[in-house]
């Protein structure tokens, strides 16, 4: 009789400890997955301007203008359709609809990817339901490849020069959006720290230039 009770008590104790462990795991850890952010090693080199770009790959000849259809970033398993984006009333780049987290967009009044100049692509890092198309953009590294399928039937291949994080208050418009003498690409999403009160503090920006086509 007493032994039975003892066994029961031990079982209850074990179950309680197990339940407590589960509760801690479920409630405390594991529910927050901040998107990866680039390290300072991925930033553009300031000591030798252009050195990083030359090391990463020779610039390819510019392609004629053609709107893009898809973007692929193999290193972070992105393969997404592109929609055209305009500007908001405040002059910032509009974004794809929040209900389409798998969709990226490009600034269609600007340069087309592969053409001489700065082409701009943007996509969500997350929406209210969880991670979106560019959730892992901050994990892209220098020398990585970005491919853009174009409507003229070709594919523009870009090589990553740098991955930077900018605070929204000090966003370097000219550096990110300004004109370029060769075909360049920017891929942008939200990043730079997050707080529930103010949201994401800034943006992750991938800088790349055209190194080939097929």
């Amino acid at each position, binding site marked *: 009789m007493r032994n039975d009770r003892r066994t029961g008590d031990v079982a209850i104790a074990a179950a309680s400890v197990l339940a407590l462990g589960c509760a801690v*795991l479920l409630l405390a850890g594991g529910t927050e997955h901040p998107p990866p952010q680039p390290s300072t090693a991925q930033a553009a080199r300031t000591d030798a301007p252009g050195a990083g770009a030359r090391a990463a790959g020779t610039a390819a000849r510019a392609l004629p203008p053609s709107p893009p259809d898809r973007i692929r970033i193999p290193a972070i398993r992105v393969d997404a359709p592109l929609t055209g984006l305009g500007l908001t009333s405040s002059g910032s780049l509009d974004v794809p609809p929040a209900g389409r987290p798998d969709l990226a967009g490009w600034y269609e009044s600007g340069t087309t990817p592969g053409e001489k100049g700065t082409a701009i692509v*943007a996509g969500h890092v997350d929406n209210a339901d969880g991670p979106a198309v560019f959730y892992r953009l901050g994990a892209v590294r220098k020398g990585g490849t970005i491919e853009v399928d174009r409507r003229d039937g070709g594919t523009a291949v870009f090589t990553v020069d740098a991955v930077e994080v900018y605070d929204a208050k000090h966003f370097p418009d000219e550096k990110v959006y300004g004109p370029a003498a060769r075909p360049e690409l920017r891929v942008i999403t939200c990043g730079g720290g997050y707080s529930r009160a103010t949201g994401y503090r800034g943006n992750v920006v991938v800088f790349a230039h055209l190194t080939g086509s097929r």
Partner: protein
Amino acid sequence: MRRTTRLLTGAALAAGAVGLVVTPAYGGDSGGLEVFPSSVEPGGEVTVHTEFCPRGAAAGDASAVGAGSFSLVPSTHDEQAAGRFRVPPSAQPGTYEIVATCAEGGKRVAGDLVVTLTAPRGQTHPRGGVKTGVGGAFGHDPVRTAAGVTALAVAAAGGTWLLHRRARGDGI
């Protein structure tokens, strides 16, 4: 080979013309050919594409703007036909019709190209950051939270039971 191609192209153009005369609704006279950029300076390059040609081959005609004929070939990554031409530097501002005739079936598709003397694109670039996230990746999953609360309740119940037993002096 070249002769064959020319003959085929000629036949396709003729078929297209006949198709237009006999069944005007078939031609899709306005539309079907996407022209990019839709507005260009003299000397600029233009890409056209259409999804209406079977197997993606077509003969393009940009003679309206003085750029002559060009070919549309199948895209490497989808079923569309795409081609390009350069607007002559001497082209006058105005709206011109660019035409393509499918190699197969002879369907005729067209699109408008505007030639303008001022650069229509790339004049303004965006300002400031981009609002591409709301923090949803940080959100607590409601199912997970409910499971956690349940597990916590089970642990509390078990603990209370044991403490109660101990206080009563039943011993563990």
